[in-house]
């Protein structure tokens, strides 16, 4: 029984062992692992998988070790031979390495190689070393590509004046790419774990900008090119454009944000300069235009001044009488006040036009803007013997725009129309200003009864410094067109089929105005 039992037991053990061996074999197959053993005695064993990994054919009589030695990649050879020497010499008990190998059929492949000393006798210096080898070309290539792409990304980011960052849900830096130092003056180490992104915001804007960012955080929103003002380590103001996307854990909780900041300070300065010089030119041409109009404008002021003086002197005379008519004097004083306001209004309109203002958008009634301009230019038209006709559309929806700049455009168009009729008999000089609603745009057109615009002029009239006038600057129309474009509109000129020219512009209706 016992024997039988023993036999049974041994069989069972043998069976279990074989079972284990089979499983190991299967696992090694699946993982592509090859085994070998090397002994100090010169014994060498390698399984079939090793031969396949290094590409050693069955016919070849060379030992796997020799074959392997021959085909190490030249650039990795020294390193691997040194490791090999070290383990044989007993300096290490195990080594691991990844290296390139010249596969006879497949060219350069990557191998991962582990070797461990299983037995070593210090006296006899005998040893047994077990090795495992695996081909990892594919994952190596992926890894390589990944590293290259990360590197490329980093380089591009640095060239573009960007840095890459990660922050936790509280906004504390958990990563910053080295290029941050060039932009913000802080090294990555000075930021990571120590600063929140908002600590760097420009102090007067900090709370506002911080609140805006955390609103995005709360909604887990991805944001692109969101601008903000930041101070560098040395306190210099820089403008950054930030893009970022949320990082969520498996449960969908916000871990933090990851993104990139671009330094747009230079671009911003350039934009500001362009904007400023554009405003400068608009202002210059406005001043030049008002200079031409000075006579008429003086008249606009003169009228109320005349009324005020005559009223005041009449009042003095009435009061000098024995029983002055106080009702009359009261009326006079009321009129003086009204006339003074009228003069003030002229000055206000003038000052507005002469002001070196920033572009200021506000909802505007185009009819009102046109009427304001006509009040200023009425006398000029009178002097030029031009009859003014107006045709205003009722209930025009509002547009968004800068009142002064639009007035400037209108003044320019009306004065041009006036000039165009200089050689036309008085009775035929007619100027028509019309407003209309066309496809959710407000159209303003100025039509004259002049000689029309010659084709060559029509082509060039929007080119800066092109002028047909003896004293013209050649800026009126180009500046006008720029102004209208800034308003999202379009300015065009054409000849009337029967006579004269029409210059008109379209301005988009204010989106909130549903009229």
């Amino acid at each position, binding site marked *: 029984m016992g024997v039988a039992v023993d036999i049974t037991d041994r069989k069972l053990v043998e069976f279990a062992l074989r079972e284990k061996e089979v499983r190991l074999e299967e696992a090694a197959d699946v993982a592509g692992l090859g085994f070998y053993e090397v002994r100090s005695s010169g014994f060498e064993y390698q399984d079939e998988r090793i031969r396949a990994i290094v590409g050693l054919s069955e016919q070849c009589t060379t030992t796997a070790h020799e074959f392997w030695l021959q085909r190490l990649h030249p650039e990795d050879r020294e390193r691997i031979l040194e490791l090999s020497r070290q383990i044989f010499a007993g300096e290490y008990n195990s080594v691991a390495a990844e290296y390139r190998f010249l596969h006879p059929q497949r060219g350069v492949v990557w191998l991962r190689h582990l070797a461990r000393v299983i037995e070593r006798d210090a006296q006899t210096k005998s040893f047994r070393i077990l090795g495992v080898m695996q081909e990892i070309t594919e994952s190596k290539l992926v890894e390589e590509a990944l590293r290259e792409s990360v590197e490329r990304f980093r380089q591009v980011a640095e060239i573009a004046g960007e840095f890459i960052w990660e922050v936790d849900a509280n906004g504390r830096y958990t990563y910053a790419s080295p290029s941050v130092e060039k932009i913000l003056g802080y090294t990555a180490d000075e930021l990571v774990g120590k600063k929140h992104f908002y600590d760097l915001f420009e102090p007067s804007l900090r709370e506002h900008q911080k609140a805006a960012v955390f609103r995005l955080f709360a909604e887990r929103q991805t944001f692109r090119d969101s601008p903000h003002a930041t101070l560098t380590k040395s306190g210099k103001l820089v403008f950054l454009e930030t893009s970022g996307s949320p990082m969520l854990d498996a449960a969908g909780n916000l871990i933090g944000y990851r993104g990139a900041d671009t330094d747009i300070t230079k671009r911003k300065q350039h934009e500001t300069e362009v904007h400023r010089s554009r405003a400068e030119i608009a202002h210059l041409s406005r001043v030049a235009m008002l200079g031409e109009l000075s006579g008429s404008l003086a*008249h606009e002021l003169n*009228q109320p001044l*005349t009324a005020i003086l*005559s*009223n005041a002197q009449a009042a003095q005379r009435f009061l000098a009488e024995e029983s002055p008519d106080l009702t*009359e004097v009261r009326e006079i004083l009321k009129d003086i006040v009204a006339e003074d306001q009228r003069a003030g209004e002229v000055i206000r309109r003038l000052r507005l036009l002469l002001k070196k203002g920033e572009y200021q958008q506000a909802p505007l009634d185009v009819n009102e803007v046109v009427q304001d301009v006509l009040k200023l230019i009425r*006398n000029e038209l009178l002097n030029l013997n031009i009859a003014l006709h107006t045709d205003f559309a009722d209930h025009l929806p509002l547009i968004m725009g800068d009142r002064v700049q639009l007035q400037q455009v209108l003044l320019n168009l009306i004065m041009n129309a006036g000039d165009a009729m200089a050689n036309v008999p008085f009775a035929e000089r007619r100027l028509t200003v019309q407003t209309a609603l066309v496809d959710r745009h407000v159209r303003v057109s100025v039509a004259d009864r002049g000689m029309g615009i010659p084709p060559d002029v029509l082509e060039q009239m929007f080119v800066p410094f092109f002028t047909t006038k003896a004293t013209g600057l050649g800026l009126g129309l180009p500046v006008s067109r720029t102004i209208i474009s800034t308003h999202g509109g379009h300015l065009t000129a054409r000849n009337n089929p029967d006579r004269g020219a029409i210059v008109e512009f379209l301005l988009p209706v204010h989106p909130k105005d549903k009229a």
Partner: protein
Amino acid sequence: MTPTPPIVYVVDDDASVLKSLSRLLRSARLNPVAFASPKEFLDQHDPRQPGCLVLDVAMPGFDGLQLQQALITKGSEIPIIFLTGHGDIPMSVRAMKRGAVDFLTKPVNADDLLAAIRLAIETDRASRQARAQVDEIRRRLASLTMREREVLEHVIAGRLNKQIADALGVVVKTIKVHRGRVMEKMGVTSVAELVHLCEVAGVKPSTP
């Protein structure tokens, strides 16, 4: 013929200015009548009415200078005081050449304007008086017969009755009768008076 008080016409397209000027004139006890456009004034203007015109130069459609021309064409000799916003010299020269009384710049001082108006009214009165006198003389001249007119032209040439009789081929006695009628019809008692009237009326002495 009862003399009507002079009227100061004011024409300005700016309602406030028009109102204030009219007030000023009333305060000076003048008699203003306001018009908002030259056309309105021209349509209702009666050249027989004494007075003067205060006229804004710059007005739409029909300006002050055009009105001046139209008045001249219509035979009105009403004195005009021009008001201008900005001292436009060529324009004022043209206006003055056509007989404007004055050319004042806005805003106009009351004393200057009132002085100009008084002068204009005086000018108008004097010229009306002169015109009335000439009209009267012409009316008297028209009452003369052909022969009496011939005699008158000889008398004012300083000729004696005898010389006139010889020139006309009649007897001296006939000339004496004609001469008496002429003096009577012309309402004069001396040859000197007659010569003066004829000078005013532009009657030329007959040449021998």
